[in-house]
């Protein structure tokens, strides 16, 4: 067991975890933050994307013990005071989702893109979202959502 201390969505969390605990499992099972989804579980689909110290990573391929001392933001941490994050608002507005399973990962990944690139082209958005797989909508509205959010963030 390893004792880890994290700041998750602005709140300090200290827990003992088994050394082989994945960050995705820790968030879902220990903190009940089930917005982080586990899709493929082989780090290809991107449904589990969260931010660690501001950078998007795949939580299903990261050990909880490995990020001891870090700041973690999950999809639950984006909305502030009951108001959706501009990226969430854009996904809603452009209907950038169908079943919604991939959406938390898409949103977290897209937020990271706009942190590093203010006005990405459609091509750059598509390249960035290579690590996020959606099996419903065919990406058109997802790309439109990121484009829309880029004018508001």
């Amino acid at each position, binding site marked *: 067991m*390893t004792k880890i201390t994290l700041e998750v969505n602005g709140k300090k969390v200290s827990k003992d975890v*088994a*050394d*082989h605990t*994945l960050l995705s499992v820790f968030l879902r099972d220990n903190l009940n933050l089930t917005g982080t989804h586990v899709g493929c*579980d*082989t*780090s*290809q689909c*991107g449904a589990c*994307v969260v931010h660690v110290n501001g*950078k*998007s*990573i*795949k939580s299903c*391929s*990261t*050990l909880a*013990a*490995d990020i001891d001392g870090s700041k973690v933001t999950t999809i639950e941490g984006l909305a502030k005071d009951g108001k959706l994050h501009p990226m969430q608002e854009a996904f809603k507005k452009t209907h950038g989702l169908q079943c919604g399973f991939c959406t938390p990962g898409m949103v977290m*990944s897209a937020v*990271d*893109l706009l942190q590093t690139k203010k006005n990405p082209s459609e091509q750059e958005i598509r390249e*960035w979202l*290579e*690590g*996020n797989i959606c099996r419903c909508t065919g990406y058109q509205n997802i790309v439109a959502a990121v484009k829309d959010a880029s004018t508001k963030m």
Partner: protein
Amino acid sequence: MKTFNYHTPKDVKEASNLASTSSAFLAGGMTTIPSLKLGLATYKDIIDIKSIKKLSGIKVSGKSVTIGATTKHAEVAASKEVQKAIPALAKLAGNIGDAQVRNRGTIGGSISNNDPSACYPSACMALNAVIHTNSRKIPAEKFFTGMFETALKKGELVEAVEFQVPEKADYQKHPNPASRYAIIGVFVAKHKKEVNVAVTGAKSCVYIDKDLSKKLSSSFSSSAIEGMKVDDSEMNSDMHASSEYRANLVSLYAKKAVEAC
């Protein structure tokens, strides 16, 4: 995933002392963690080397670019110094996997794993890289010994990779659309005295295509290798690409790389 003991040594000596026949060094974990989850590998001890500060960072001198083992792909891709000294290397790093993999994956992990389809080994071969470990310096051509195999011994740890700055270079990859690994990756580097054409994805291990390198060494132009046949007898053949197709891609992508230089 089976249980293991997780260690965070503070220096290379401590990391090396923890190593056993049932241990693995962990950097970004982009291959190690999925392998553990799938049961392809099991270890008693996982030795995380990311807390060892001296293993991370980029140093550029006139003749070489030295990248610390735990430097992430995203850091290499975004480095202004690497972009200036060896733009092909920054480009290669920026096209590995996806954004999240690049935010975690490291150069030391990539070359120590020596996946036959990984991108970095081709850069090491073409750029006459020297692999610095905690006990010696290994030239790239002696480092990559076979499929998922390297010259590293038990407890030996990659500390940094030193690349020779070429006159010109380019990397062209035909990625697998799902995994982004190279179905074929060709790294062409023109040095003062010779040209190296390194190929990944084609065979069980990265290699230098001697014929293409020789032709380009005597005349560095795409017309010099136009339509050159590449031997496919030892090439991989799978659901993604037949050996004949791969051989054709090697020739084609070498040409594309020369044109992009």
